[in-house]
């Protein structure tokens, strides 16, 4: 479980680091806060509502807004980054699941 969380965090941290020219420490802190907010909620929702794609969509929207607020990014940029982050972590999750 912790591994799954760390993998998501690692993927999202790398993407955020590529897109934002601020200190890596801040990127890590903001990335951690975003993931600690969305990841457990996504796990809980998944237990009662098994549509993974809709849950991912919810996480994508929530993280898009959080990136916009925390990283002071424009709407479009924040949502493109959120899309890339969630697409990659979703693919990584699928690879692990079917490996």
């Amino acid at each position, binding site marked *: *479980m912790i*591994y*799954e*969380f*760390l*993998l998501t965090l*690692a*993927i999202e*941290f*790398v993407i955020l*680091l*590529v897109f934002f020219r601020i200190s*890596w420490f801040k990127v890590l802190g*903001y990335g951690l*806060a*975003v993931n*600690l*907010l*969305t990841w*457990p*909620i996504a*796990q*809980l929702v*998944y*237990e009662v509502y098994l549509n993974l794609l809709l849950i991912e969509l919810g996480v994508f929207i929530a993280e898009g807004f*959080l990136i916009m*607020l*925390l990283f002071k990014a424009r709407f479009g940029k924040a949502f493109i980054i959120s899309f890339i982050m969630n697409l990659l972590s979703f693919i*990584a999750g699928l*690879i*692990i*699941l079917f*490996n």
Partner: protein
Amino acid sequence: MTKLGLVTLGFLLMVMPFVNADVINPGYRVIGVENKITNLNDYPDYVFVSGGDYSAGFGVSQCPIYKIESDGLVTGDYYKLCNIAVYAIKKDYFNESILNRPNVNSAEWNSYEQFVKDYFNSANVKLVINDLKTFAEVPESSTQKSIIYEHTLDLSNKNAVSKKETIRNDLIYVYIIVPIVALVVIGVILLRRRRNA
């Protein structure tokens, strides 16, 4: 550490698990499933047994027959793909020998299997619950610890009323408290930033 170094480290973290793919736990665990019939004592003229749905494919070798005792608990060791069913049998028709399963390789096996098939096709054996869930697998990150199904029978109506209760582990508190803390932290960051602006 430079940004390039951090990016490399991040990618290494992502790739590392696939190097050792054969030993990766697929991320699921089996949880306990309990099935209980709550009103067994309402039918003192019947004996209740659990077994496979023998019309659905799996035979008595994979899905043996077990008597349900007065506590109402459906116990037994079933193959996970068995379509488990509960049958009500009139007490005067009940034959203990359906419970005495011989060895699958023994000479008596074929006659026992035929006997079970004929016995369960009889009008004196009523299928009262079909497709009991006796096996559950959940993601490692799930808060589910075990599942209890409670069934209330109505012999005049084939459909029993079933209620599901999920017992959760302590992870549920982590999943509730951690996002609240994260939300507070994000709120504080944004408030401080607004004050400093």
